[in-house]
């Protein structure tokens, strides 16, 4: 093996005396001793305890209202209607009334939620064309074959946006109305823009360049997705920065959920005017739903969620509780280890031959 070296003389083949070659590199050889392990466990138990309590307090300070409206209020009617596919084009609106007993303070976030909807199926997730949605003109007219069977419409026109994901967009719409204890009903203003990831809105999704053409002209020669009521360039006719591929609702839907039960942001309470400057006041609310999205096929449920947030996010109790439980477990293990060490290991009998 050894290389031919330029050395000569009686010790020409003597290996170098380097620490590396002689396997004598300076090194640190830590051991799991009682003096390191036991304090570490107690410290970890303490840290987990503190984190758990802190997180629990944080989470407790948020408020959340969940409302399953699949068959609630007058929506049972719509639910029945949507069972029949031939009624798909018919409009159906319904109303659900619900109380808020304690005011939601601060920013309030309005989500729609779906249960048992698998956005994470492999074939479903693959069925999209990012190149089309980033505004590539070639892909606009020739979508990726991954979009099958939602690549072209029956007339052979390319679908924009193509694929199963876009096709199945959630299309219920909501209006929320506040009924104070006195005075008239006030519609609750929701901000429906600025609710996506910055990178999605500005990098990942772009409309095709239009060279002084209107968006409708740019999309000429493409078809709308089969399940859509209107083409992509009419998603928000009032705001060109929220129309086409850069429509916030579309972008949010296109960010597929990891699990079959998920919620997606619909809007944020606009707090400029009374009585919403401090959040949602207590009182009765009605929610008007344009009930379009059929869930009965796949035994799904639909819900709306109103929640306030902290630095930690929404009202998820798992992490605080998990930290508290972990803290207890670590403490228990630490005590066991201490006892064992005290009884067997302390005088080091077993460690000496």
């Amino acid at each position: 093996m050894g290389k031919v070296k330029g050395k000569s003389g009686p010790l020409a083949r003597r290996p170098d005396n380097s620490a590396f070659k002689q396997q004598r590199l300076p090194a640190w050889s830590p051991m799991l001793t009682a003096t390191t392990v036991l304090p570490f466990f107690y410290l970890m138990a303490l840290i987990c305890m503190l984190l758990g309590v802190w997180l629990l307090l944080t989470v407790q300070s948020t408020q959340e209202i969940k409302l399953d409206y699949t068959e609630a209020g007058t929506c049972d009617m719509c639910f029945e209607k949507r069972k029949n596919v031939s009624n798909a084009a018919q409009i159906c609106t319904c109303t659900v009334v619900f109380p808020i007993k304690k005011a939601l303070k601060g920013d309030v976030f309005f989500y729609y939620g779906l249960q048992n909807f698998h956005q994470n199926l492999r074939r479903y997730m693959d069925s999209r064309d990012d190149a089309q949605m980033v505004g590539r003109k070639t892909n606009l007219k020739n979508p990726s074959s991954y979009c099958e069977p939602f690549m072209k419409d029956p007339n052979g026109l390319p679908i924009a946006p193509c694929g199963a994901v876009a096709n199945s967009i959630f299309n219920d719409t909501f209006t929320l109305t506040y009924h104070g204890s006195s005075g008239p009903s006030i519609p609750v203003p929701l901000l429906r823009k600025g609710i996506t990831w910055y990178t999605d809105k500005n990098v990942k999704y772009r409309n095709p360049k239009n060279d002084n053409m209107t968006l409708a002209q740019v999309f000429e020669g493409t078809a709308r997705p089969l399940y859509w009521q209107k083409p992509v360039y009419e998603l928000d006719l009032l705001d060109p920065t929220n129309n086409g591929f850069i429509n916030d609702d579309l972008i949010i839907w296109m960010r597929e959920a990891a699990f079959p039960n998920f919620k997606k942001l619909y809007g944020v309470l606009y707090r400029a005017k009374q009585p919403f400057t401090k959040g949602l006041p207590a009182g009765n609310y009605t929610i008007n739903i344009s009930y379009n999205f059929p869930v009965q096929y796949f035994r799904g449920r639909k819900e709306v969620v109103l929640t306030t947030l902290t630095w930690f996010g929404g009202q998820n109790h798992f992490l605080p509780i998990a930290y508290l439980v972990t803290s207890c477990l670590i403490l228990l293990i630490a005590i066991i280890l201490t006892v064992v060490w005290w009884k067997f290991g302390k005088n080091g009998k077993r460690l000496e031959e």
Partner: protein
Amino acid sequence: MLYLYKIKQHFSPIAVATSSSLSAGFFYFFTEEERLFRANDRPFNLSYHYADNAIKTSKYNLFTFLPLNLFEQFQRLANAYFLFLMALQVIPQISSLSWFTTAVPLILVLSITAVKDASDDINRHKSDKQVNNRMVKVLIDGELRNEKWLNVQVGDIIKLENNQFVTADLMLLSSSETVCFITLTSIALSGEVRCEPPNNRLDKFKGTLTLDGQTYSLDNDKVLLRGCTLRNTEWCFGLVIFGGPDTKLMQNSGKTTFKRTSIDHLMNVLVLCIFGFLASMCTVLAIGNGIWEVREGSVFTAFLPREPGANAALSSFLSFWSYIIILNTLVPISLYVSVEIIRLGNSFFIDWDRKMYYPKNDTPAQARTTTLNEELGQIKYIFSDKTGTLTQNIMTFNRCSINGKAYGELFDFSGQRVEITETARVDFSWNQLADPKFTFHDHSLLETVREGNPEAQAFFRLLALCHTVMPEEKKEGELYYQAQSPDEGALVTAARNFGFVFRSRTPETITAMEMGRTVTYELLAVLDFNNVRKRMSVIVRNPEGKLTLYCKGADTIIFERLHPSCNKLKEATIGHLNEYAGDGLRTLALAYKDLDESYMDEWRQRHHEASTAMEGREERLDELYEEIEKDLLLLGATAVEDKLQDGVPQTIEQLAKADIKIWVLTGDKQETAENIGYSCNMLREEMKEIFVVAANTADGKQITTTHIISSIIYMIKAAHIGVGISGQEGMQAVLSSDYSFAQFRYLQRLLLVHGRWSYLRMCKFLQYFFYKNFTFTFVHFWYAFFCGFSAQTVYDEWFITLYNMVYTALPVLGMSIFDQDVNDRWSFQYPQLYTPGQLNLYFSKKAFVLCMMHSCYSSLILFFIPWAAMHDTVRDDGKDLADYQSFALLAQTCLLIVMNIQLCLDTYYWTAVNQFFVWGSLAAYFAITFTMYSNGMFLIFTSSFPFIGTARNSLSQPSVWLTIFLTSLLCILPVVASRFLFVQLRPTINDKVRCHMTQTIASLLYTPYSYNFKCWPLLVSSFKEVTIT
């Protein structure tokens, strides 16, 4: 040569014919049954299409390299398997991963191997070219011409000069040292040779030479083999019998036996188990998919229509293959590459070890095989030669018994033996030709010889005449002896110093200087030594015309052939011999016999007939020898000492402490062997019984124990590790060995340090490697229950591609190359550390199952904690955090961090390199991740990097980091706790020694004046080393 063994059941050698032996086969268009050719007659010989002398050991050329090399590589099961996976990924319905996840690692592995193969082959091309272009003098058209080796043909007559390599397998025609019995011209004109076809037997050759109608027999003695070098001969002429690929050298090369370590065997079994496990996991998932498709998928078709003709059963079938692709990381291709790299690294450490370098002959240790290192840590048996392996193979004439009187030992007046080193050496200055290096301490022997004692003179005359030593006298009076065995050299040198100087020999004469008088003996016959005869004789006629047979040999053999009149002398000599054997000396008995002329003439006639006979030559010669070597008269006996090498007793004691059983194979007398055994600590009093048995089997006399012999022979032939001691022993042993070094004592370092570390490292590597890949893969399994068993991966495809190759490759390699539980000095101090290896304790099927269970636990934590923490969570600004991409990033980050912490727990020996690898890999992970999820990458390669922005949006969230922290704690703390418990309750020998080492170093550092006395020297030396570096 040493043979190292682990356990009996692994003795299953696998012989694999490589393509070089196949290519040699292409030369034969017909099966050659007998080779016939004429000397110096090229047209005649060429008609037979014998292979010429060009050799080709290279495998490829420029055009065949790519197809041939790829073909060879895909014959390996692992590579073929990954090719199959790649083929699966091309099918769109199955492809659950992009092609690059498999292709990139496969291409990397293939190209690394191809580069290595190519460089090896380039070296072979170079050496072929160099060898083929060597020049040699060939007799062509009546004159000697310089020719390249590759142009030499069968039947050519070539001339070699001193120190030249032998060009091909030659029949020796004449040389400067021998007198030619036939003239070259007659051979060149009409010599015709018939001989056996090419074969690989080195010890046999049969053929006949027909010359002028007369037939001469040819045997192995008359053949020079390619690969040898001509020595001590001015020139010689030879007739080419076999050229190039037909030579014995080439016939013997090319057939490599793959030796496999027990870890290899275990790994093969485990890989098969893993395949079974993979199949069952995929079956479970496929069934799950079938059920899901019936219950959920069928009602989800509005959003995700099925492909035409697809149903639940087909979907289930396809998902089986999709999962085969996803879960293939259970057996990653990088496993085999990493194992090779680790072994190579450990081989380099053996080559580089200064403590196995022998400065006296400038010989470093050499790992000639790079695939067996960890087996060195599991050795149970050592079979060792004695001569040259345990001993220095430098023989010194120590004592002798002449005519019943013993010489060489000194006693003082009270009869106590005197240490000979304390007394003055015998002065040989009266003898001009004496060897100055020879020492002897008993003055009485020289006096006896100089007084003219006839027995003493006959004794040394025999030693000067009966041998096969070649003298070299470059300058007048400066004699050098070239002896085949050092015993002979020692005896001839002794005779030389005592006044019987062997000076020169020709095939017919031996010239000696006897007490200053030159005497030339006529050499009538040499009765060779061999292992059956165990004796050698010469028959000489002195200038006065007296015929004498001189015989020396093993005492038992000689004593059987003595004349009855010697009985009394025999008794006395036996007494001396037992004494010598008791001191571990090698003994020979000497005897002679006067012959009468008429008998001798008749015997010589019969001898000539026998030696030219074609049939039963050897048997007839043996009979003749037996007939003449009887009724011998005893002269005495010699005792030669073969000193043990330095450190042999200590080494054997160390190895015995490490529970390694040592067998020494020796041809010595039982008493000699026994005493050597005691002197090198191999034998203790209570072990004597067993040893006797073994000594008897070495004689082969006891039928009851012959099965032991056959098992020994079987073990030596079967799979094993050969260790050659380079230097005194022939280079043959080194060349055919797997490891070589200059001194026996380095064996303890090879086994107790390098072997043990290699084994430890390999086991740690396998354990960690399986753990990291199982955990990685099992997370996919859990996710299947949430994604409708649709073969969706948890991680980003790029992460899957890079996980084994980039993110986790170097840290584990760093651990597996550098790790030491305790350093070399402590390894020596506690040879017991070696025993876990012999018992397969560090990695076994049980450890594998435990490792799988650990992986299962970790993967549950790594999937369900992030799941529970994320599935209903949003960012602090209300935006999405539970999307697939964020979850994938979280899961893979958790996994990588946990894997790195686990590696830290497994690493005993933290060098800067390890730190660099661990932190570097984590840093590389984040750097690569942020790069791949950047705007630029997405805008350039839109469809390859859809994860744009995920890292920025997700890793900025406190809840993400809190999840990572909790996951890591839950994965790691149980491991720490259980390891701590095991150390406290059932500490292993490693734990004990490591603890002792830590305490000793701590006590030295903190309380310099109250150190532990026992450990002080150890620490001083280890500190010394630090200061040297």
